[in-house]
């Protein structure tokens, strides 16, 4: 399956987008600020000029004297210099700077941009006589009850040009910055994710052939250190399972090769020279017996493999353990007679488990068969089956020689056969199968030596109660 999206791609995209938005916002903020500063400086110039002019207007007893001749020199004398003023007295144009042509050019518009009522100041932005943008400051005040109005204008042409240039500069620079952020984002992501690549390379080296190798977590960042440790413990579990599997295959091969050796030797020796018909028949019977053993072993291995694969658990149904025990007892009946073993049963009320009937019967008959095989002649097997709280307790006890204490743990191992009982025929798989079946039913199996001498197997299984299921069902 193709990975849906890459961490690196997303990281680059996020860095790129957020960087781009930030650059654009910064551009706007800077431009705005520049504009504000530029206009503010023009504003300051207008105000200071206004103050000077106001200082040059004197009130006399019956007339007003305006001494603007000093001011009118310089920038105000050059026509269309962009620096203008007009003085109105009682609404009539009284004085105009020589630079303003025509001298009655209207420096104000209907809509002031700014109005300070207390100081009686207005600010306008208009188009000047040369078509240039102008900022105009108008101030009205009274001298000897005459209303004097001064209008001072300064060109904004330079400011506008400067701002336009600045804007152009930003517009050119912004894509470059965004591109740069993209590249930086890519580099950062690559760098940040490099340990992941190294980690992946370290994983790459581990195959089923060198499961014993581990990732050395020390070189990695803290986050990957944890991943490496988890991964190592996963490898540990896998290796255990893998080794067990290998061991099982080696054991299985060994177990099958021994009867094969018997069959081969039987045939080779039979064919070594001419023999009587009875001798040949004897050899064939031997081969037949050994092949039966092999078949039992192969079937046992397949059963184990099936249980391990979890095939059993898919079709669990309520099963009466009592009827399983009936069937198991019937299966071993002739064997018990052959060995002169008496089987006694002690059962309480009928108990039901959720499980596979055939498997449970096999588990029980395995226990019974063992109890018969590893018993003294004329011995007995006692079976109890009863309910204890919400568990079912099954015990199978024989009157045989018991199991050496140091081998109790091993009797459930695959192909394990006690050295003391090698002469008794068996596959070494019966108890492994029984245990696997019990475990797949969420049960448990234990073995101990009874005080009377024989071995005692105890199986516990969870009780299946129709009432409880119904209660759980109604709750759900």
């Amino acid at each position, binding site marked *: 399956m193709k990975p849906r999206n890459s961490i690196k791609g997303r990281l680059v995209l996020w860095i790129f987008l957020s960087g781009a938005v930030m650059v654009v916002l910064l551009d706007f903020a800077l431009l705005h600020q520049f504009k504000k500063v530029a206009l503010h400086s023009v504003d300051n110039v207008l105000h200071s000029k206004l103050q000077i002019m106001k200082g040059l207007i004197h009130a006399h007893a019956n007339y007003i004297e305006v001494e603007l001749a000093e001011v009118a020199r310089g920038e105000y004398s050059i026509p269309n210099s962009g620096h203008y003023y007009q003085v109105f007295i009682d609404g009539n144009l009284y004085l105009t700077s020589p630079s303003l042509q025509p001298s009655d050019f209207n420096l104000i518009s209907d809509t002031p941009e700014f109005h300070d009522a207390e100081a009686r100041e207005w600010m306008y932005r208009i188009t000047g006589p040369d078509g240039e943008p102008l900022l105009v400051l108008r101030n009205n005040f009274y001298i000897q009850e005459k209303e004097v109005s001064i209008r001072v204008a300064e060109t904004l042409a330079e400011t506008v040009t400067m701002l336009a240039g600045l804007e152009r500069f930003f517009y050119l620079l912004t894509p470059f910055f965004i591109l740069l952020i993209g590249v930086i984002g890519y580099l950062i992501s690559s760098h940040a994710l490099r340990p992941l690549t190294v980690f992946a390379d370290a994983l790459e080296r581990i195959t089923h052939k060198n499961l014993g190798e581990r990732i050395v977590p020390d070189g990695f960042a803290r986050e990957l250190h944890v991943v490496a440790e988890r991964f190592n413990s996963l490898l540990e579990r896998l290796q255990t399972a893998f080794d067990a599997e290998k061991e099982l295959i080696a054991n299985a091969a060994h177990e099958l090769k021994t009867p*094969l050796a018997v069959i081969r030797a039987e045939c080779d*020796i039979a064919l070594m020279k001419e023999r009587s018909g009875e001798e040949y028949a004897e050899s064939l019977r031997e081969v037949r017996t050994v092949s039966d053993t092999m078949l039992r072993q192969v079937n046992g291995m397949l059963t184990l493999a099936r249980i391990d694969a979890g095939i059993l658990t898919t079709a669990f149904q309520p099963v009466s353990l009592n009827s399983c025990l009936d069937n198991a007892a019937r299966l071993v009946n002739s064997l018990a007679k052959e060995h002169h073993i008496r089987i006694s049963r002690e059962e309480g009320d009928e108990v039901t488990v959720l499980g596979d009937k055939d498997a449970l019967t096999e588990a029980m008959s395995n226990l019974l068969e063992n109890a018969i095989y590893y018993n003294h002649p004329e011995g007995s097997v006692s079976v109890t089956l009863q309910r204890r709280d919400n568990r079912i307790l099954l015990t199978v006890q024989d009157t045989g020689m018991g199991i050496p204490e140091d081998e109790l743990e091993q009797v459930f191992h695959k192909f394990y056969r006690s050295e003391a009982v090698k*002469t008794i025929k068996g596959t070494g798989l019966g108890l492994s199968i029984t245990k696997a079946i019990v475990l797949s039913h969420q049960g448990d199996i234990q073995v101990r030596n009874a005080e009377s001498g024989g071995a005692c197997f105890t199986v516990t299984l969870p009780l299946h109660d129709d009432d409880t299921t119904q209660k759980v069902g109604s709750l759900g």
Partner: protein
Amino acid sequence: MKILIVEDEQRLAALLKKGLEECSYAVDLCFDGEEGLYMAETFPYDAVLLDVMLPKMDGFTVLENLRKQGVDVPVLMLTARTEVESRVKGLNRGADDYIPKPFDFSELLARLTAVIRRNKGQPASTVQVADLCLDLNAKTASRAEREILLSAKEYAVLEYLVLNKGRVVSRTEFSEHVYDGDFDLDSNIIDVYINKIRNKIDKGHEHKLIRTKRGVGYYISKEEP
């Protein structure tokens, strides 16, 4: 030649005994490592077939102990484990050969014969004493190009004599190498076999090969008496 088989799979052990006895070998059986070690230390076998996986003591340990005691009987390891390490381990501990299970019986026989032959300082598979010729593989004897029909026991006695040519072999030694441990020993039986063999190989020949050392035993020699 007498062989000790140490093998816990009793069916296989019994079969090997049957097969080897039909090939003129005397065979003793035991089914665990401890008994095997005791038997191999105590009785003079010509070869030991030793299984690796044995109850009580594994084959490697049996072999190690045997060699430690200075018992240099040829040992053939027998096992279903075919891993190279397992084979190397056996050979390193003084095994003379290694036979994986399941084996071919004729191959086992050939290897066993070869190991015994080499151990007796006999590199070729045929032995010659004057004009008497023994084929150790085919287990046949001939004198002056004429084949001599011998029973399995007769051949076994003759073979032992020939492989120890020039040396006097006592009746006890004969019975130790020709009969298995279950046999009730009566050394007169050896005299009976020697007589039968003499009738078959020396009768009608000027040059008698089988000689008697009075009070000690028998020997075979090509030298004129």
